[in-house]
């Protein structure tokens, strides 16, 4: 059975009109004779949304007891059993109740797609996993509900639902996004013009990258795709010398027109010292100034972590500092650099020297 097609409606923030657009698309599809159901709809108590949903078949939600509360989630099995041609699913990044089979709604959507059903879904850019730190730095809000970038990458279409920050604030003030008592707080916190502007830029960039990527895929042999677009991965750790590694990597990224990712592979269970905390925060700030993506992974095998992230991000170039490993480890397990050379075939590797260790010429 062929997999269903996934169309994601991506927005910069709540209230830009993703759910509205999803329902409009559902109605249009039904008018064209497509069998459409609503898998899950978050009406947000918005009357216009509720009106637009009228007449579209709604698959009953699954009620689950969670403590004393009754919570409702999308009934994936019911959607699959109903077997429509198209299912509309709101809030892709939503976390299901712990009792649910899938932890996240995007996993539910994957099951629906696997059953050959097309899906139109909605999500905000702030939920994208790779942007989590950037969003935190931009807005001061740590978004807990995230979804992996691969879901966006694997989608057949990503469509930006755009609204200018000013227009969104107007909608907010008019009570079209949140209830009146929440409006003022929203306007002075998350929905500040500068936040909305930055989020919009992120959403535009995501969609632009997605379009660029798809265009590339169309003209370039997929086997050589990763070699065409340069992407740099800089390995950092919470210490001052990593600043230089990141700066060097940025310089190269500018020359190559490449995206830059900074990666810290955090040994599991490691406690940072206050100095390391400071260095880590400084590195995050630098990454943000440079427009780099700061990634953090847990793992006790640095080379394996790098290999995984390099594959995930399509890295073509890896920057690292002079490895700090003991000679004993180097002799027993092989040096980090040679392991990386072995593990990352086809990827350039550059070791940025630690100037502090340089011997001056006498």
């Amino acid at each position, binding site marked *: 059975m062929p997999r269903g097609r996934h169309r994601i409606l991506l927005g910069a923030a709540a209230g830009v009109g993703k759910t509205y657009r999803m329902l409009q698309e559902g109605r249009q599809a039904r008018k064209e004779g497509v069998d459409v159901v609503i898998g899950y709809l978050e009406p947000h108590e918005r009357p216009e949304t509720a009106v637009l949903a009228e007449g579209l078949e709604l698959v009953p939600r699954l009620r689950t007891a969670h403590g004393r509360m009754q919570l409702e989630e999308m009934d994936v099995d019911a959607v699959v059993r109903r077997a429509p041609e198209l299912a509309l699913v709101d809030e892709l990044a939503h976390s299901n109740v712990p009792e649910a089979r899938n932890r996240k709604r995007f996993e539910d959507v994957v099951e629906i797609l696997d059953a050959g059903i097309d899906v139109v879904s909605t999500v905000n850019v702030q939920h994208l996993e790779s942007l989590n730190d*950037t969003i935190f*730095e*931009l807005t001061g809000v740590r978004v807990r509900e995230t979804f992996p970038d691969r879901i966006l990458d694997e989608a057949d279409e990503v469509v930006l639902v755009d609204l200018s920050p000013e227009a969104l604030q107007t909608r907010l003030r008019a009570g079209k996004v949140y209830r009146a008592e929440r409006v003022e707080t929203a306007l002075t916190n998350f929905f500040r013009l*500068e*936040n909305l*502007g*930055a989020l919009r*830029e992120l959403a535009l960039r995501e969609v632009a990258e997605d379009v660029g990527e798809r265009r590339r895929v169309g003209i370039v042999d997929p086997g050589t795709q990763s070699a065409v677009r340069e992407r740099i991965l800089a390995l950092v750790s919470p*210490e*001052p010398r990593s*600043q*230089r590694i990141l*700066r060097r990597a*940025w*310089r190269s990224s*500018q020359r190559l027109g490449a995206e830059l990712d900074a990666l810290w592979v955090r040994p599991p269970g490691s406690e940072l010292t206050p*100095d390391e905390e*400071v*260095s880590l*925060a*400084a590195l995050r*700030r*630098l990454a*943000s*100034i*440079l*427009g780099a993506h700061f990634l953090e992974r847990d793992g006790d095998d640095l080379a394996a972590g790098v290999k995984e992230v390099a594959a995930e991000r399509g890295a073509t170039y890896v920057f690292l500092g002079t490895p*700090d490993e*003991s*000679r*004993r480890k180097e*002799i027993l397990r092989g040096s980090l650099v040679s392991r990386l050379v072995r593990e990352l075939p086809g990827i350039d590797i550059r070791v940025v020297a*630690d*100037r*502090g*260790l*340089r011997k*001056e010429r006498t």
Partner: protein
Amino acid sequence: MIAALVVAAVVAAVAVVLVVVARRPRRRPAPARKLLVPFTGGHLDPRVLEAAIRIARAEDALLVAAYLVRVPLDLAPEAPLAREVEVALPLLEEVEQAALKAGVQVDARIERGRTATHALRKLWEVERFDQLLVPAPTERSPGLAPKDVAWILEHAPAETVVIKPAPPVPQAA
């Protein structure tokens, strides 16, 4: 005979390992004290840098050279700032080279804010410094303004030294 050869090989291998371990360059532990040198305007006066290195060495302090970048109001506070970074990078490299050559450990950074003092305030809100060394403003230097230095002297969380930049080199007639 074979046993003797095996023992000899093992002894040789151990010796090689010991030599290799002994040769490995050691990274020095980070100093406990921190000296902050904020600067901006695409310039760090050599005299200020020299003084910073001298003080850091005498106090056995980590020299934190922070290039302060102003984020225009029409940009998001966390927007990437490629043009300013281009200006800052060679300066930071220069500071690093000079400090490391003098045997002083250095942490060269770019910090940003809506103004130079905003950037500075954000920095010392999250990090402790034992001493600040600030270049004094001059008519010809595009760095910190007199009001910035006055603000630093009033608000700095640590002992602050203001250093007068080098006098201009007289032009040959």
